[in-house]
């Protein structure tokens, strides 16, 4: 099911993950969030941008445990906990935020 944004069509897999991560742009994240009935705040973007940087450096989307720890280190303890991240991304921080970031589903995510 392709995703239509700004008159362009983007290929996604059956769970809505972007097929080609090089096609990603911020409008796609907004469109995916809207489809899920969510609106992206600055706090969402902090996590999305963090994930994109992590992928750029390590070529993987981090597992949720790793994400939580790394966010805590980078953005402070009040953000590096599951409660905060699940409030932002109720479908699972790694899974949902990775989708908005245009990354593949995290390895080991069931």
């Amino acid at each position, binding site marked *: 099911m392709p995703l239509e944004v700004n008159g362009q069509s983007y290929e996604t897999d059956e769970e809505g993950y972007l097929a080609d991560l090089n096609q990603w742009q911020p409008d796609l994240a907004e469109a995916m969030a809207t489809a899920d009935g969510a609106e992206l705040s600055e706090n969402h973007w902090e996590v999305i941008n963090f994930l994109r940087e992590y992928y750029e*450096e*390590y*070529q*993987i989307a*981090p*597992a949720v*445990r*790793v994400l939580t*720890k*790394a966010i805590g*280190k980078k953005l402070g303890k009040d953000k590096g906990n599951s409660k905060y991240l699940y409030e932002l991304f109720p479908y699972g921080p790694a899974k949902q935020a990775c989708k908005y970031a245009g990354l593949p589903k995290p*390895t*080991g995510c069931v």
Partner: protein
Amino acid sequence: MEEEGIVKKFCYMNRKAPYGTIYALESLEVVLIAAAFDQDISLVFADDGVYQLTKNQDTDGIGMKNFSKTYSALGDYDIKKIYVEKESLEERGLTTDDLQALKYEDEDDDWAEKDSLFVVGRDELSKIINEQDVVLSF
């Protein structure tokens, strides 16, 4: 997260060159998944497996993802015991300078960076493998 469970010693043996077969990538993915189960994990690189950890890999010519960058993320997954067989390096004319410097950050020591890669001789490696509960070969 802090529940007491059975912790076994798992050792992942990597003996094949990184590309050309799927073994290296599969092993890495299995390790990343297994890391979620709080077990005692060691990774061993021997024979052509030592090439998996070399620096400056460039996969443009073969159209495969360069997953060598992912080894630096192992520290984030609390994988702190990565053994490279000394003789395998020597037989291939490699030294530790040809390998990535793999480190982890010690949360209990103010995030100090510590080495997680150890070059060990064949004898010591065989002792390490003997101490394992489970050895998985790739």
